[in-house]
């Protein structure tokens, strides 16, 4: 059985350097997968391949909702269905918060301005930013900006959400508000693949945790399997380094 997101033998080379060395991963619809691992292990590269922000080797295969991820026509469909949240927010600074959320539905889905605005306001209420809808991103705190970025991605009604260390650029007191939004999102049944250093979040929310190192998946299992009963030495070392920090 293949998953909603199905990754087979994923390889990514930078010249001679292999950032990903044959990743196999199936993610079921509605599943929440957290990806953890040391810096440089290929976590970002992995999720960036899923919406083709990173091109990968020809021999590899990624399928999202039965559509293969390859550069070209079908990519628009994939990207409309896969939302992404970046470590550095990447909001559009020249647009108001509401306009940030409205842009893609209007331009990609052809939504009318009225519909896009109504939908944007609903989403902004959901992430608790509605009061700031007319402000520009630079006037918001980091945590607020990241919540807008989540709303912006959700506006396309994605079936899969990718998160690349969404709280790593935030001051500690703002991490919680973003994680809360993500937890609520997980409860709505959206498929989520989350690269994170927040082990508490992974333990509480993930259906499955994946540990990566050196461009490979070293170990994967339920949060309990990984956090309490890791079999691989590398996983144990990584976790003891992070958790006793």
């Amino acid at each position, binding site marked *: 059985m293949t998953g909603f997101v199905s990754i087979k033998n994923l390889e990514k080379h930078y010249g001679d350097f292999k950032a990903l060395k044959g990743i196999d991963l199936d993610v079921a619809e509605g599943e929440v997968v957290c990806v953890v691992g040391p810096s440089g292990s290929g976590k970002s590269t992995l999720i960036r391949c899923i*919406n083709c*922000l990173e091109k990968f080797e020809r021999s590899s295969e990624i399928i999202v909702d039965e559509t293969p991820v390859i550069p070209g026509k079908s990519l628009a469909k994939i990207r409309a269905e896969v*939302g992404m949240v*970046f470590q550095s927010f*990447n909001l559009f600074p020249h647009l108001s918060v509401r306009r940030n959320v409205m842009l*893609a539905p209007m*331009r*990609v889905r052809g939504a009318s301005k009225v519909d896009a605005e109504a939908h944007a306001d609903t989403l902004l209420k959901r992430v608790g930013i509605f009061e700031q809808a007319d402000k520009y991103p630079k006037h918001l705190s980091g945590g607020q900006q990241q919540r807008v970025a989540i709303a912006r*991605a959700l506006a396309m009604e994605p079936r899969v959400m990718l998160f690349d260390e969404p709280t790593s650029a935030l001051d500690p007191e703002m991490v919680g508000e973003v994680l809360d939004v993500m937890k609520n999102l997980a409860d709505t049944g959206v498929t989520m693949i989350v690269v994170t250093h927040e082990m508490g979040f992974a333990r509480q929310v993930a259906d499955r945790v994946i540990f990566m190192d050196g461009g490979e998946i070293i170990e994967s299992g339920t949060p309990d399997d990984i956090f309490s009963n890791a079999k691989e030495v590398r996983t144990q070392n990584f976790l003891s380094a992070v958790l006793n920090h």
Partner: protein
Amino acid sequence: MELIETFFNSEVLIRAFPMLMKGLWITIKLGTVSIVAGLILGLLLSLVRLYAPSSVQFLARVYIDIFRSLPLLVLLIIVYYAFPFIGIRLSPFWSAMLALTLVSAAYTAEIFRAGIQAIPNGQFEASQALGLSYRHMMLDVILPQAVKIVIPPLTNNSINVVKDTALASVVAMPDLLKQATQAQALSANPSPLIGAAIIYILFLWPLVAAVSRMERRFGAGES
């Protein structure tokens, strides 16, 4: 006293005034047409230079480098005096317009390229991740941000174009400078030349000041 009689002879200036105004009008027309055409061609060139297949990119680079190295006066004289040998006969106005546009486009292309490259990669990635087409990414996200960055250097370039229109007097264009030299010959007094110089300054000074203001404001960094 004699100096004022020579350089600021009011009688001569008043007589030359209508000629100078006619010349100013032609200078403005030539400058405006060249600036607008240079902007459009330059924007297209910058997009080719950044995003076209690499062989076409290379051609754009060659174009940009050639027209930035070629002295405008040389280009103008080639267009006006050499093109007729291959059957292309352009009026002084269109010769000057062509030369000014070709050169301005090369500079404008570099300005736009720098402006686009100053936009953080994350803006491109966020647009792509949302599924925006290339066209919408550029029109809705990248160019509106780049425009802010490129307005001061583009204004500078426009000032240069207006100044360079004076070269057109070499190919008998009745622009401001040409009118002034003719008025000088007629009255055997250099006051019209001084008058023309003052008109150039009065006309361009506000633009120069505006660039300084913009640079100071953007430089102050409202991030």
